[in-house]
């Protein structure tokens, strides 16, 4: 593995989707992953909303970090500042969607406020700092992480729709079986690990 600046953005994109998937490798953003994966349609809606917010907030936070936080030596405040930026940008994204893309707002609208507190959104902003990504790499990292999260929740929802009609042992229904499925999915995703070596 070379220095971070040497990694091709496309590699980062693919790695974020497959080898270091936000949910299945890092186990971030689990709450909505478990609770909103009953139905494929809703899960996909949430996945799209997460992707959009991830992309926008990582880019904003990259500029905030490199032009405000780092020059002023405020690294110890980055958790709070990233969260504030995420909260504000989600508000604005919601208003903008409602105004210009009402169709999309109908589909994503109810999820957007929920996403403000999704830990994977904060997670990728922090990863981007730790891994010292450039602006371009950050764009691809944000996009890839979002797509990866979307892929994972859609896959889980599809599986859950299939098993919804099956009889499960008492106590394993709902979240129980969902955690087991998530575990197996995470194992399956390990299979991608050999293809790309990015932390």
């Amino acid at each position, binding site marked *: 593995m070379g220095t971070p600046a040497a990694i091709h953005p496309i590699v980062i994109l693919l790695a974020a989707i497959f080898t270091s998937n936000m949910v299945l490798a890092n186990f971030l953003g689990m709450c909505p992953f478990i609770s909103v994966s009953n139905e494929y349609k*809703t899960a996909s809606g949430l996945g799209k909303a997460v992707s959009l917010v991830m992309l926008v907030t990582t880019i904003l936070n990259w500029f*905030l970090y490199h032009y*405000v936080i780092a020059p*002023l030596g*405020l690294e*110890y*405040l980055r958790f*709070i*500042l990233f969260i*504030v*930026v995420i909260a*504000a940008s989600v*508000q*604005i994204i919601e*208003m*903008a969607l*409602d*105004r210009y893309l*009402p*169709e999309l707002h*109908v589909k994503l*609208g*109810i999820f957007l406020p929920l996403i403000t507190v999704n830990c994977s959104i904060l997670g990728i902003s922090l990863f981007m700092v730790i891994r010292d990504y450039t602006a371009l790499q950050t764009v691809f990292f944000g996009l890839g992480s979002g797509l990866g999260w979307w892929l994972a929740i859609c896959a889980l929802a599809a599986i859950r729709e299939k098993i919804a009609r099956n009889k499960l042992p008492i106590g394993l229904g709902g979240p129980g079986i969902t955690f087991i499925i998530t575990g197996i999915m995470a194992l399956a995703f390990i299979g991608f690990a050999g293809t790309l070596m990015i932390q």
Partner: protein
Amino acid sequence: MEIVQTVLSISLISSALAVVVVIADRFLNDYGECVIDINGGNRQMTVNGGSTLLSALAANRIFIPSACGGKATCGLCTVQVASDVGPVLPTEEPYLSEEQVNEGVRLSCQIKIKHDLEIHIPEELFNIEQYQARIEKITDLTHDIKEFRFALEEPAELAFKPGQYVQIDSKPYGSVTESVSRAYSISSVPSDKGFVDLIIRLVPNGICTTFMHEHVKEGDTITLRGPFGDFYLRDGADDLVFIAGGSGLAPIKSLVFDILEQGLEKNMTFFFGAVTKKDLYYVELFQDLEKRYPNFRYIPALSNPAPEDAWQGDVGLITDVVAKYVETPVNKQAYLCGSPGMINACINVLTGIGLTEDEVFYDKFT
């Protein structure tokens, strides 16, 4: 030094973002002036776009029934929208039947006004007004039920049909920071002009009932809206069966007293269900009516009387007691008010006796 720097940088960056959000709100949420046309030109109003239909109508003194205050949890604020306002939202779906969706019925609290709208609402909603009322008297009826007598201040009179309800707006108290609207049936009669009586049972952890029971006193001013509801006397039958439990006595009291006052030729039987004697109230009032009016009968029943109650009356679930006294469905109507469980059980008993569904009227607590 570091503390000052920390506080300053967080405040500055947060304020900057807040300003951005406010500016974005100003530009993105500004939909200009929109015209709302009600019932095909019957009324027209100009409102500022960007707000919800429910709040825009309320600002123009048209009060659509709503018990949750615009959070899409009660499903009462339905309005027929003739203009295109986009597909039904996931938040509305649980409250709209397929038929309603086809007719364009929507929850007005979920519709954001972005352009001119054409809507249809029942004419009687035009009669709904908002009132400022002073609490004249608070009476303890049982250990958890109080009666509130309101003197209407502005406007001074409320014309309603016995059985209808009003909404109260609670005010923030203690750890409750929000104001909620809740519906309560009127227990007084329309001839008692200038006053409205409500009977409110304390619901554990209920925001509005706790407010009314513990945070208001005589002399306080409260906001009321009404009258709402389609639970009122219908023509047709001469034999009326009233069944109530708990604070469900309120609309029944209004109906019974109004019928007696009007001198209508109706035979009335009033079943009141409670658990023990301490849950009973207004017993003497109704027993006195029974003595004075041969066409009124009062049957209180206890499901689980305590030994010290020395209860002489009927014992058993209200459904069993109703089944015991009501024999024939001929020329009958039933009016029910109480918990959903009680009402559903009573509807089963009444239809079992032979009443049809359009002879049974009810007001379920939600």
